[in-house]
């Protein structure tokens, strides 16, 4: 914890992320109305009207409200899909790494199959097949992002399984499931947490890309959709696509900084250098 706090980048990232979280939770305080509602005249310039500080889009929707509600969507999808991918990846990696042999071979060939397909292309196809909705987007993103987790967990398990404390657990008659959960997994936690934090950032980017291409959930205002919509007005109102773009950039940057900070804090080789 001290090491994490000593890392200036990580602290900045954490502050930024807390700000984004605050925005997301306070969105309904800013405007009780849906961000899709047309509330003012279209193409209001930013910093012109107190009620709409960032102006309105071509249909008169409040861009500020859109950004705040978009934060909810981005964070929710980012975290949900990461959670799903991590849980699935851990399950596959743990079973493959602990058992080895043909089980490992089978599971790793499956993993490689998913890794050979370009991530975004596969996510698009999946969302298109299952109709764009919150569930299909979360599902698609986690579908394309679990293989690295599985490989990481597998390699951690393979090395930890050789450790004497795991052998001691086997010798004392503990069941494999218990050994996986209570002996090995806690010791593999740090790299998994680091990977998960970086994956959240990637998931937010993927979600934005999907929404930009018009594959977002129709009921949810998202940053990617906002950029996609304002793209046609790029020459008339360039700032309109700038705001959601900035929001995505800052959020992803914040999460990446946190991930780096966690990595440095967990990595024993960097400990000596840091202090």
């Amino acid at each position: 914890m001290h090491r994490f706090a000593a890392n200036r980048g990580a602290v900045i990232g954490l502050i930024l992320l807390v700000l984004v979280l605050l925005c997301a939770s306070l969105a309904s305080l800013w405007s009780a109305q849906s961000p899709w509602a047309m509330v003012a005249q279209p193409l209001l310039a930013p910093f012109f009207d107190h009620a709409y500080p960032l102006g309105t889009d071509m249909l008169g929707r409040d861009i500020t409200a859109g950004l705040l509600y978009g934060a909810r969507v981005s964070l929710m999808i980012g975290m949900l899909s990461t959670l799903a991918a991590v849980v699935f990846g851990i399950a596959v990696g743990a079973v493959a790494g602990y058992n080895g042999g043909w089980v490992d071979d089978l599971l790793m060939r499956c993993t490689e199959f998913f890794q050979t397909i370009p991530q975004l292309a596969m996510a698009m196809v999946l969302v298109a097949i299952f109709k764009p909705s919150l569930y299909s987007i979360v599902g698609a993103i986690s579908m394309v992002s679990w293989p690295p987790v599985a490989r990481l967990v597998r390699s951690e398990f393979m090395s930890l399984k050789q450790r004497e404390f795991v052998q001691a657990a086997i010798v004392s008659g503990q069941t494999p499931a218990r050994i996986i959960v209570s002996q090995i997994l806690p010791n593999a936690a740090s790299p998994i947490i680091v990977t998960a934090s970086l994956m959240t950032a990637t998931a937010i980017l993927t979600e934005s890309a999907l929404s930009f291409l018009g594959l977002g959930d129709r009921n949810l205002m998202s940053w990617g959709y906002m950029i996609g919509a304002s793209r046609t007005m790029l020459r008339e109102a360039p700032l309109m696509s700038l705001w959601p773009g900035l929001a995505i950039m800052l959020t992803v940057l914040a999460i990446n900084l946190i991930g780096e900070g966690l990595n440095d804090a967990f990595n024993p080789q960097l400990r000596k250098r840091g202090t």
Partner: protein
Amino acid sequence: MPSIRNYVSVELNHPMSNDTNTRTEPLLAIRNLSIALPKGGDRAYALHDLSYDIHAGEILCIVGESGSGKSMSANAIIGLLPDYLRPEQGQILFNGCDLLKQPEEVLRGMRGQDIAMIFQEPLSALNPLLTIGEQITEVMRVHHAYPGAARQQRVLDLLNFVGLPDPAALCHAWPFRLSGGQRQRVMIAMALALEPKLLIADEPTTALDVTTQAQILELIVRIQREKGMGVMFVTHDFGVVAEIADRVAVMEKGLLVEQGTAQQVLNRPRHPYTRRLIAAVPRHRHDPGAALYSVPHDKPLLQVENLRKTYISGGLFGKRRVVHAVDDVSFSIRRGETLGIVGGSGSGKSTIGKCLLKLTRIDGGRMLFDGEDIAPLSETQFRPKRQNIQMIFQDPFASLNPRHTVGRILCDGPMANGVTRRLAEQRARQLLQLVEMDAAAFDRYPGEFSGGQRQRIGIARALAMEPQLIVADEAVSALDVSVQAQVLRLLREVQQRLRIALIFITHDLHVAAQICDSLLVMQRGRVVEQGPPAQIFDAPRDPYTQQLIASMPGRDWDPVAAIAEDATRHV
């Protein structure tokens, strides 16, 4: 009169006037060297006010336990100290020139040329991507010595000198082709390339087998005599000291507590710490009464018949290599008995332990535990019986889960076998007491304990299962000699009180001799000799056993006599 004054002043510096070397200037003199540790360490100084001399043509052994700072002064001489450690005061005089004051360029010129070093791990000290010949020529190239064709000839001479077979072919070999002993010979050849005046050897034989160790020690003594070098030999093993040292310096916690000739320090130790270390050196047991604990007519608890384990490496395309790790091994053990399995590395002794615990599949044979063959049982069938056979592991740092408290480590096993939490915890606290640990250890994490304490926790964990058989795989090899003695005593006591059968796997014949009721000598997967320690040590029949016994370092030195004589003198 200047010559006499000179003589007198030297005499004052070196009170041991019977030593032939004292009349000359020392090759290397360390004077009042202190190196501070960073704040917050367990002591303020890594080395404090250290002074000693090394003369040309003598071997100085620096002995001490881990953390005593014995390697630190070696690293200070060659300039390998980490950045955060800087000598605070003192001098390191090499031929009268203070190494601590020299600029890096001068030091770089001296390394390899005047001072050479060999390391503990021959496996990692050689670059795996360069051939043996290239690595040795490199030393000469950086110092611009032996130009042209002479350089290649020099490499061959060196390899020949350190006793490696077929130098011409070996030049083009990669390090991975060589055994540990051969690599250490290559390291020595590299160190000798430029005929240095001082050779620093930091535990050069610790990673080697006892037979290989004997050869390397012989080699170091031979080259030292032939080249007249000064050798600084850092070790933790008093047997090795007895074998090669001319003079000995004993270190404890960064302080030099005693130095003198090998004769003085080994046979008439003065400092209490030296006496304690020597008393802890494992040796033959002299109490015949101990054998009474095992009743010879008891039926065996475990009977192993024709055990076989074969490793096959190389797959579809590679060359198939078949290694018979355990080849037709049979033995039996009774309750309360200690069976030692000894042998060099790769002899299959650890594989036997793994087979008994069914941590690895076996390829043949029967393992009758209490009359029932456990070999064909599946993992699920065997799991309920696992509590009867427990293991104590080698590495006290890897064998305890760093994320569990000691209490949890001790309770997990019994609870997996249906013991209630309350009972398991109560028993864990009793066990901590039994292995002489503080009850407060229950809620602490393994990281807070030393190696010896961790090994006690490991023993407690094995005992928590109330086993009938314990397999101890090199259980004390990673421990310092004084801690080793304590753990061995504890193990023996507990084992005899609870009448547990103990299979003690070790490479250290001294330890085996001290604790075992009978011994099994292994070579390349086969049992070459079996019998009580007295017979194996005093009248070995098999040629390999004879070789093994002959290579035990310090056979002619009797630590018991040293301490006994010392005690009578002090009384």
